């Protein structure tokens, strides 16, 4: 029987894992070194959700490295999706929801690219995206689910989904193909040099994503010692042997948020919405030029966001621990 290209064969999946260097070794590198671990045309899974824990520093590095034709998957896509489309890094996004955000409404950039068929937005149910990563993390080829049935969301996926009668109960279930991304990029609050990653707050789909992917690039607010990790191993959510690169990137989600460290930079995102509202094409281009191409270093990007906004976002971010 022919292998369905949607799903990796189990033996290939095992062989890829077996070939990885899983030893306890130091993996700290720069953003641009990490960007070289992502190749054109690959499937990139993006950690976080909406405006939260978006690995923006890594996305910034991928834009600067000129990566192209990536297929991107994420639980929910916000303004970073505009950046993927507008930069050419990805013409193909797999997600359940894609908008700049509830506060700003539908993304004009997303509308321009999808309505003019310049890019794909494959829509799945939210839980289905999650269960596809989970199947990938579990090493099984599919996951049965009771949603998406009966809807046009499922019909539009064509052969990517199947329904079957459950052999035990006779009920109808939908089968979702496992998702095993080539690379996952995930931002965390802290990690050690080996890639043991500790996550605070909302976990989204990141742990399944890390387990499912062939390679994982971690960016982290700060690098801590392995001794610190070993004092609170219960807080480690991603094991080092799934990780290929560790990059220290303070404010690595800006202008999105990182739980307990900073909230979204609302004024910046307001200004972004205004910039792309009247002319999405010129708007996203000028935004990419100003914030992604001109700054030489991640710290130059942060300097452009401005100290005032950074302090405001971090004051609000840390407020979660105030009471």
């Amino acid at each position, binding site marked *: 029987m022919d292998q369905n290209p949607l799903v990796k064969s189990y033996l290939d999946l095992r062989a890829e894992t077996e070939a990885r260097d899983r030893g306890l070794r130091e993996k700290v590198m720069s953003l641009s070194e990490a960007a070289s671990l992502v190749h054109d045309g690959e499937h990139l899974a993006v950690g976080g*959700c*909406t*405006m*939260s824990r978006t690995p923006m520093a890594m996305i910034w590095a991928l834009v600067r490295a000129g990566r192209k034709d990536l297929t991107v998957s994420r*639980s*929910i896509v916000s303004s970073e999706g505009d950046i993927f489309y507008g930069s050419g890094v990805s013409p193909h996004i797999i*997600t*359940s*929801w*894609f*908008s700049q*955000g*509830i*506060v700003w409404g*539908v*993304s004009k950039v*997303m*509308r321009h690219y*999808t*309505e003019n068929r310049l890019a794909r*937005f494959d*829509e799945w*149910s*939210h*839980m*289905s995206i*999650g*269960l596809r990563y*989970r199947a990938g993390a579990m090493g099984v080829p599919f996951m049965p*689910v*009771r*949603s*998406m*049935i*009966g*809807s*046009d*969301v499922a019909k*539009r996926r064509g052969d990517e989904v199947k*329904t079957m009668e459950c052999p035990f109960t006779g*009920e*109808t*279930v*939908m089968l979702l193909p496992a998702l095993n991304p080539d690379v996952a990029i995930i931002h965390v609050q802290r990690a050690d040099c080996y890639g043991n990653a500790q996550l605070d*707050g*909302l*976990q*989204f*789909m*990141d*742990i*399944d994503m890390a387990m499912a992917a062939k390679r994982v690039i971690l960016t982290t607010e700060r690098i801590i010692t392995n001794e610190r990790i070993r004092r609170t191993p219960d807080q480690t959510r991603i094991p080092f042997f799934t990780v290929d690169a560790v990059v220290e990137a303070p404010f690595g989600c800006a202008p999105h*948020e990182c*739980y*307990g460290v900073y*909230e*979204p930079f*609302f004024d910046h995102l307001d200004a972004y919405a205004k910039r792309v509202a009247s002319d999405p094409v010129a708007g996203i281009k000028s935004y990419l030029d100003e914030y992604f191409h001109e700054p030489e270093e991640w710290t130059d990007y942060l300097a452009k966001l401005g100290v005032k906004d950074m302090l405001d976002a971090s004051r609000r*971010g840390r407020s*979660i621990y105030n009471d």
Partner: protein
Amino acid sequence: MTERSHYTASELLAVMSARLLHDGQIVFAGVGIPLLAATLAQRLHAPGLTILFEGGVVGPFVVPGELPPSTNEQRCTRRANMVMPITDVLLLLQRGYVDVGFMGGAQIDRFGNLNSSFIGDPDDPKTRLPGTGGGNDISSLTQMIVAMKHEKRRFVSEVDFITSPGFISGGDSRAQSGLISGGMYRVVTDLAVLGFDKDTREMCVLGLHPGVSAEEVQDNTGFDLHIPSDVPRTQPPESNELAVLRELDPDRLYTAN
């Protein structure tokens, strides 16, 4: 008696929706009117009601003036009981722990199907909308309350795309498709509270809001609605309901109009 001009359409939606929720229920809520309604119910008559957010939050309490910008940012976790991965919080729906799902949409049809994906032909859309988010999962797996503004362009005979299934094509078509639990429960608008006929599964009017006529509801609906001649009137928002809402949203982010 509160006059119609004393509250906004959004406030009316939130109050009427809150009254449908009961103590002890577990409610999946999105940001905006659903969250305001669930919080209002908690404050007034359902202190044991638990809110779930699709971001993975179990049992948050809204801090007045600090409404979250979506269900996935840290503000959603304020005073919550638990934070879990997205996939797991959604699986609570599939397991059957959730009583009511609560959401809005761009279009709804006579069988309660919701569209938040495409306006026009999905292959050549006039407008690409954000998509389902958790909507499809919620509407597939639990009872739904939909809160939305009552406009002809939103209440259509047939949606352009079924993002979140209601009763599909009526009758027992939902169960036949394989969706053997859940379904549409109520649609709350700024004009009326609506339900679905238990056999045909077509939308019908259960109550008219103060000062609203049957003709006004029909004129703002893109399909024929069953409106019984003795259709009851809903009770207008009370001052304590409005006071709590205004305390929760002092900047009028979600309740201005």
